């Protein structure tokens, strides 16, 4: 079956612009996670969804970051007023209910110029 998909695969944006990153989890997976992979910080947890609710937003680095999930499926991560330090690979993962056994997407590489 299809795995986790993310779009776009690459995004170049100018500092100050808003960006939206999309994640399509594996069908039937109720849990969805966003992580960020950057050279300086490694792999960082951003936010966790169980269904459409987000019980853990503790990893969002600032109020410029937000995420939503609709229909218990697709999720969108939005970064407002992008800064150069937002440049990273944003990874989405999903799992059946909540589990450490997570299935990762290919990531979106965000470059802020």
């Amino acid at each position, binding site marked *: 079956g299809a*795995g986790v998909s993310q779009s776009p695969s690459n995004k170049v944006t100018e500092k100050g612009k808003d960006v939206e990153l999309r994640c399509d989890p594996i069908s039937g997976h109720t*849990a969805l*996670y966003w*992580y960020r992979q950057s050279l300086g910080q*490694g*792999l*960082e*947890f951003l936010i*966790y969804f*169980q269904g459409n609710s987000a*019980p*853990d937003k503790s*990893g969002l680095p600032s109020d410029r970051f937000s995420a939503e999930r609709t229909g218990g499926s697709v999720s969108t991560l939005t970064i407002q007023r992008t800064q150069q330090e937002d440049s990273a690979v944003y*990874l989405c*993962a999903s*799992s059946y*209910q*909540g*589990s*450490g*056994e*997570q*299935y*990762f*997407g*290919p*990531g979106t590489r965000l470059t802020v110029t």
Partner: protein
Amino acid sequence: AQRVTQPEKLLSVFKGAPVELKCNYSYSGSPELFWYVQYSRQRLQLLLRHISRESIKGFTADLNKGETSFHLKKPFAQEEDSAMYYCALVPLSGGYNKLIFGAGTRLAVHP
């Protein structure tokens, strides 16, 4: 504090040599431990988890609660094992809500 430490950024070995990728964790409760692997130009994927106690691609890892370690071992490395390896924990009290990753170790297996 919850933390995973992988002390080696790079581990370079020759084919057929034994491999041990080190992982230490800091967590006050009982975590669940994982190894994830990322091969070149592929997505991050689960290699193994401590509760399953299985061997995947010849790799094993034993949880040592006394030493708070979860080292990954393979007796004879192969060139196809070259990849980035991440140790991760899930704090069980958190309800499986996130993976906490170490910084990763790049394994390079030379012919």
